[in-house]
């Protein structure tokens, strides 16, 4: 059995920020990541981040990831395990990890689960044909491996992911032939939409994908219009010649681990699915177990980083109550998160949180 103060599960934006905060205070931790490298979805983000300049806005996503990782490694108080998969989070507080062919058992004082999310799928004819990808897969292929997934792409979904990945496809040399969105309005930031519209990507709302067709791979797609209840309208089919379909239709929190440990969960459509009940410090109903980032509710990278820091700061404080400037730092983080969520785009999140946040007695 390995004993440690803090364990962070997941090395994406939330987990990295948590590890950085922990290392700032010299608290020992183990950061576990199932992939070969740290960064999660951040490493694939080639665009400059929005948000507040104080919280790294203006920097490209992959640069942010690299910088945080460098700082963590420099501090030396974090043990980093990559290629290591957490197998279970047990009710007695033990975490099992598959690492180098062995199962390790760890008993941390505090655990921060930052396990992210997974991509939603869409039902349409022949949706299993090679050439149909999730948006994340397209980003991984293009931005991590430098492989172009195809030359003529249909993008499904106009949230920020659909809009951003469309732009990245153009940067990589592909042509986005069409973007369809089932809702009547564009879901993501309008500046992202304008960026691709002026590069010739036609955006069509109240429309979705009916099916894809081809001999062993995508060769053409058929889209059709839908009404305000998303029912297809007969006779509006349109055929488009594409070799790739990219689905950017939403994410679902990936939090089976915290559920396994016995956390109370609640369903929130606004937050993307089942999420753990938590307090203002991201602590779940299981004492000592925190959940942050997309695993606690689908939002975006900057809020993931802030929630990771909040969870880590509180976790450190509960193990070492004599931490200097705790109140000041916590106040700063909470304010930044509130500010980020204060605008119209934050409305959905605020609504979801009002159901998922439990105010605990201090």
């Amino acid at each position: 059995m390995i004993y440690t103060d803090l364990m962070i599960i997941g090395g994406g934006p939330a987990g990295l920020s948590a590890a950085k905060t922990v290392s700032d205070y010299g608290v020992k931790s183990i950061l576990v990541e199932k992939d070969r490298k740290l960064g999660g979805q951040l490493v694939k983000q080639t665009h400059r981040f929005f948000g507040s300049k104080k919280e790294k806005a203006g920097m490209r996503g992959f640069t942010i990831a690299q910088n945080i990782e460098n700082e963590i490694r420099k501090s030396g108080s974090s043990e980093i395990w990559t290629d290591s998969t957490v197998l279970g989070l047990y009710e007695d507080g033990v975490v099992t990890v598959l690492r180098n062919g062995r199962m390790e058992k760890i008993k941390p004082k505090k655990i921060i689960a930052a396990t992210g999310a997974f991509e939603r799928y869409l039902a349409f004819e022949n949706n299993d044909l090679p050439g149909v990808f999730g948006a994340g897969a397209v980003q991984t292929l293009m931005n991590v491996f430098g492989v172009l997934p195809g030359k003529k792409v249909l993008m499904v979904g106009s949230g920020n992911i659909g809009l951003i990945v469309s732009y990245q496809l153009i940067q990589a040399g592909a042509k986005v032939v069409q973007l369809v969105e089932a809702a009547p309005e564009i879901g993501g930031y309008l500046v992202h939409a304008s960026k691709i519209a002026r590069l010739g990507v036609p955006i069509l709302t109240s429309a979705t994908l009916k099916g894809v067709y081809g001999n062993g791979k995508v060769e053409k797609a058929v889209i059709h219009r839908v009404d305000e209840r998303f029912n297809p309208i007969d006779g509006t089919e349109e055929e488009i010649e594409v070799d790739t379909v990219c689905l950017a239709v939403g994410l679902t929190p990936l939090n089976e681990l915290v559920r396994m440990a016995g956390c109370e969960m609640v369903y929130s459509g606004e937050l993307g699915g089942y999420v753990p009940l938590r307090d203002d410090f991201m602590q779940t109903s299981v004492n000592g177990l925190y959940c942050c980032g997309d695993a606690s509710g689908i939002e975006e990278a900057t809020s993931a980083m802030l929630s990771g820091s909040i969870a880590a700061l509180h976790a450190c404080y509960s193990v070492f109550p004599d931490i200097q400037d705790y109140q000041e730092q916590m106040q700063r983080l909470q304010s930044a998160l509130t500010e980020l969520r204060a605008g119209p785009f934050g409305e959905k999140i605020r609504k979801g949180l009002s159901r998922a946040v439990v105010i605990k007695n201090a």
Partner: protein
Amino acid sequence: MRIENHPVLEYKRGKKITFFFNGMPVECFEGETIAAALYAANILDLSSSRRLHRPRGLFCAIGNCSSCLMEVDGVVNVKTCVTPARHGMHVCVQEGKGDLL
């Protein structure tokens, strides 16, 4: 196909290596996953559905969906989207669920 020049990214490609796909040599760069290397070589069929044998390719590319399971050096159900290619590796399209033992 591979992207040679990108306006924002610089790809750090390792040295050239060769592995085998269904016996056919495939050249790629060290550091690439098997699935990425196959896609770069325009090989999009990685597996097939169990009952109807419909072709399957990459979907999530991150180890979550099981679309890319192949037999690698005799080991079945390997997630090729998160497994790095190695020089001399033998990668085959898997038949059915594969036998573990």
